[in-house]
């Protein structure tokens, strides 16, 4: 007989939100032979293999560009036989639209893409799935990110990370750039995802299938790469600089690099700063290495 407590969905049905970095500034700067088209072909194979694993698996791709981000592909819509075509077409539309939007007030300087926006979109999508009923696949987010972190997005990204943590959605990150990403290290650390920066980008597909294709259920039994050290440094709210030492509002925990009369986030008035030898109202946030 079938067991009494038949689960609604088996453990390994997953909803994979893939955030793809389409920042042209990053892709043009890659010195290695790893081009965007190579990346895409490996990514598409990976998406196909995820969808192959279980007929209930669902993949959603969100492109995070320089000026905007948007859903590029959703496997729950449309037929199965023209996946690649639809995805590529949407991606092309997205890139050209992204190019048209010219971001004038670029706070971060050049080179970072809208990770915060893409993360929020992914979380919104997941929330919608959660609310659609008791039957839903296990969601997770995979960030394929290459461009450098934009400190201006610090608050938004941290908020997304905590909301992901709250809704038990792990954020996996695969960094394809040359430098480690502090944001993604923290995101994966806090939400219990996997952080990995592949050494050989030509074998990206193998990295993706061995590490990131693992469903949440199987992760309990497997040894996946562990973060060797996470950079916990925060960005200040006033100048968006990454700081090691700073001031923190005792009411709303906003971080500032210099003393202010009043908190710019919650409006509470601060007292006078104490002399620099006292460290009572200074919060030390040291990198944990």
């Amino acid at each position, binding site marked *: 007989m079938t067991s009494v407590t*038949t689960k*609604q969905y088996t453990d390994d049905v997953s909803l994979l939100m893939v955030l793809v970095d389409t920042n042209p500034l990053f892709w043009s700067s890659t010195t290695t032979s790893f081009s965007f088209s190579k990346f895409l072909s490996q990514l598409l194979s990976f998406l196909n293999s995820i969808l*192959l694993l279980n007929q209930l698996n669902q993949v959603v791709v969100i492109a995070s560009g320089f000026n905007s981000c948007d859903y590029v592909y959703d496997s729950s819509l449309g037929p199965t036989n023209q996946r690649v075509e639809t995805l590529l077409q949407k991606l092309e539309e997205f890139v050209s639209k992204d190019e048209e939007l010219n971001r004038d007030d670029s706070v971060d300087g050049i080179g970072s893409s809208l990770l915060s926006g893409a993360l929020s979109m992914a979380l919104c999508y997941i929330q919608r799935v959660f609310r659609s009923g008791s039957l839903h696949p296990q969601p997770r987010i995979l960030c394929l990110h290459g461009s450098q972190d934009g400190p201006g997005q610090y608050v938004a990204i941290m908020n997304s990370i905590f909301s992901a943590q709250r809704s038990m959605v792990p954020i996996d990150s695969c960094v394809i750039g040359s430098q480690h990403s502090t944001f993604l290290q923290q995101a994966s650390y806090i939400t219990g995802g996997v952080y990995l920066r592949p050494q050989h980008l030509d074998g990206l597909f193998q990295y993706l299938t061995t590490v990131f*294709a693992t469903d949440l259920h199987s992760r309990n039994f*497997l*040894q996946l790469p562990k973060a060797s050290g996470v950079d916990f440094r925060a960005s200040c709210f006033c100048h968006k600089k990454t700081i090691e030492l700073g001031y923190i509002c005792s009411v709303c925990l906003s971080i500032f690099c210099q003393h202010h009369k009043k908190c710019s986030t919650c409006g509470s008035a601060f007292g006078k700063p104490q002399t620099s030898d006292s460290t009572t109202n200074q919060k030390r946030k040291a990198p944990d290495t």
Partner: protein
Amino acid sequence: MPQVRIIAKNFMDMVASLPAIKLDKLYENAFICEAILRSLPPLAKKYVLQLLYIDVPVTANSLQEWVLADGASKHRVAVDRLIQLRVFTETVDRKKEATYRLNPMFQMNLREHIVHGGVLPREPMAANITVRLPSLEELDNYAAQQWECFLLHLINSAEAEVTTKSISASMMKVFQRGLLSQRDREGSRLTESGFQFLLMDTNAQLWYIIREYISNSEDRGVDSADLISFLLELSFHVTGEAYNINTLDDVQRTTVKDLADLGLIKLQQGRKDSWFIPTKLATNLSISLSDASSRKQGYVVVETNFRLYAYSTSKLHCEILKLFSRVEYQLPNLIVGSITKENLYKAFANGITADQIISFLQQNAHPRVAERVPSVPENVTDQIRLWESDLNRVEMTPAHFLDDFPSRDVFEAACDFAREYSSLLWEDSKKMRLIVKTEIYAHMKEFLNNQK
């Protein structure tokens, strides 16, 4: 506990039990590779994906290194399954080290799939040729209705004769085998397994029937491997799309007709062509049993006072409820009954167990009560179990009674002899009497003769 023996628990167990040559031939079909991959345990899926682009054999150790200590048993299960399905071939080299590699055919098909994406087994027909396709809802209703009809027919051939159109009598015999006991005088009667069959969920029932259908295929001159591959292929068709029947060969066409009777497929006839539309039942075929995403909505509410309310219009539901409860009255959309001792005793006598009844009530709980824990009141479930154990208070064992032993020594020896075979049920050493199980009686007699 007597059970409907689900020897192969799902499609893939059946595939796994095929001989190696047939299995290798099956892997030539890309859809089968896909279905097999999907049926694997999660860890096994991961291994396949990991090894997909590795052409050299991989040592067992390097695979094991990925697994934490807790997962060792899961790892074992996954690898065993892969070897059983011949997806992995295991070779042990001179250093006694096991290496695995993927079945090349399987590997090639999956690589193809990953690069090119999924393809459909056949193109659906253009919308302008087909007249009017049923909506998904209509199709689901059709499938449910057809299946219900079939079940009614199965349990109650005489009554359902009018309603069902055309399930061929010989096919019906195949399905009824094991579920009904044929008695000439009083007509057919449900067997124990038949009762249990009715309490299973649709997926399990469907699988049972399909398994009978497949295992019977050789008698009809159809190769079971061909049939399996067609059924699996069928599950990759899109629900609700029309497919031209001319794309099928003769064997498949007869199969399609049989499946239409079961509600797996809807056949439609146009002016020139005819086509088949797979229903949800067909596309769910390759999904394993535990996966109840196709589950129907429940309809039963059980109250603490043993009253039972079933919001259903179905005659079949009423029949099923009658198996273990007294139906008191029936309104157009509601069946009201109560679970009584007498009815449960009747059910137990028919070979249904308390656990099966309880699991049926839980699985079919009305959405309003399904959210509650427990969905069936505890006092009711406890009482059902108690009534069942009431029946088992007296255990009967056929036995023989021995007395009039010539001496105490012979008596003691006989007792020891019986004890040795753990067949001594009772002894009275004062009056030198003992009772032994029947199966040992012949040996006992021999033993006593030798003693004299």
